[in-house]
């Protein structure tokens, strides 16, 4: 078995590029989904807003400027192949250095505070990033990045339902969370839902779910059906683009599930605003 060597400098360079690219350019699948949604939107104001959002996306990618002033909390999901040997330093430091360089050279806003309730002093460079690590077979490193804006993250929710609440309880909680998020969280949304696992893991699942391409259904047909049903219902809530009222509240809902304790039914809903910035690389 050969061990593949990857130097931290390569990781820093690639992280820097993927962060800047994500901040300037919305993913192609999401742009296409918005274009489709525009035709489906019944409200004239809603249509105009979707058009404005698309125009903003064109300007930010052409001029290479931040799509949204809230350049977000940098969140990474890193899968490290077990046959990889990282050289030259720590992978955590390398990722943070990539974020630091992207913030400075990419003119991103520093949006993190050192502590939540004491001084709340700005860290100045968007570090430390939140990094989830996983070890997988193989000799590659896969890095997924999302810039999580405060406005939509603030409207995300988690609940520990009772098993007796069942599927109906889950649906109600998801729809209520979307309705309450309303104009505060910049719809059209992409909604990530995590059901099962533990208290904390349900939220991780909800966040991970947001990386799946728009329009791609879950391979489990029961979950795929639930995604479609909830998406249909979400768009009858009336929230509409930026909450001004309309028929396009969400462009997609992604659900992930996990095994669960016999006493529990954890549900987490991660709301993603239209600044749907994420990116993936493989090294």
């Amino acid at each position, binding site marked *: 078995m050969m061990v593949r060597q990857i130097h931290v400098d390569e990781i820093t360079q690639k992280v820097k590029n993927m962060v800047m690219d994500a901040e300037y350019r919305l993913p192609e699948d999401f742009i296409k989904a918005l274009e489709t949604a525009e035709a489906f939107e019944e409200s004239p104001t809603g249509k105009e807003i979707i058009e404005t959002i698309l125009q*903003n996306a064109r300007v930010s990618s052409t001029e290479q400027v*931040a799509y*949204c002033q809230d350049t977000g909390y940098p969140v990474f999901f890193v899968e490290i192949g077990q046959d990889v040997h990282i050289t030259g330093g720590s992978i955590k430091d390398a990722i943070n250095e990539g974020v630091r360089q992207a913030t400075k050279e990419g003119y991103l*806003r520093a949006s993190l505070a050192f502590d939540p309730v004491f001084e709340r002093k700005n860290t100045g460079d968007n570090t430390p990033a939140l990094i989830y690590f996983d070890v997988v077979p193989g000799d590659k490193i896969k890095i997924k990045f999302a810039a999580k804006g405060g406005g939509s993250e603030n409207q995300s929710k988690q609940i520990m339902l009772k098993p007796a609440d069942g599927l109906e309880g889950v649906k109600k909680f998801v729809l209520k969370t979307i309705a309450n998020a*309303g104009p505060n969280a910049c719809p059209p949304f992409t909604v990530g839902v995590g059901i099962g696992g533990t208290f904390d893991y349900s939220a991780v699942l909800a966040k991970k779910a947001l990386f799946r391409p728009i329009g791609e259904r879950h391979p489990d047909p029961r979950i795929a059906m639930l995604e479609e049903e909830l998406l249909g219902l979400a768009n009858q809530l*009336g929230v509409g683009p930026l909450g*001004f*009222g309309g028929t396009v509240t969400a462009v997609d809902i992604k659900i992930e599930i996990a095994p669960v304790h016999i006493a529990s039914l954890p549900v987490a809903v991660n709301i993603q605003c239209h600044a749907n910035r994420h990116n993936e690389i493989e090294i």
Partner: protein
Amino acid sequence: MSDIKKITTPLTDEVIKDLKAGDRVLLSGYVYTARDAAHKRMLEDYEKTGKLPFDVKGQVIYYVGPTPPKPGQVIGSAGPTTAYRMDKYTPKLLELGLKGTIGKGWRGPEVKEALKKHKAVYFAAYGGTAALLSKHIKSSEIIAYEDLGPEAIRKLYFEDFPVIVANDMYGGDVFEEGQKIYRKIEIDP
């Protein structure tokens, strides 16, 4: 769709009286930026000294923390942040003469009451369209709390900055009214 109104800061009672929820407005003139940290400090300073870092009479506060400007830019991307987080501080500022705020999302009942009482409005700008909105900002200068970085108080000059009246002085709410039209299912609170 209503006609677009062009108005210039500072705002007077006469201008405010004429604004109704849903009106589209192009706003020009000087406005001040402040978000969470600046609001907290401003009102702490006011408690201690009886003074604010700028005279709010007739003025408009834009809830924004912009990205840094690239070379050649006046300001970086500069869209609105969610307004309800400032609800705790807004009634006091309206009492002191502030006439308008710009943000995104709902305001709470205490702010809606204060808008009626002090004759003021809350404008919504299109959230997340920061690259476009920054083109309507022609100058930017930090006037207080520079140590807060993106949360420092800036004096901006607007040229036809597009907003919608979200809450007027009559109790109107553009989000509530707009959503009612398209709401086909009700979710129990």
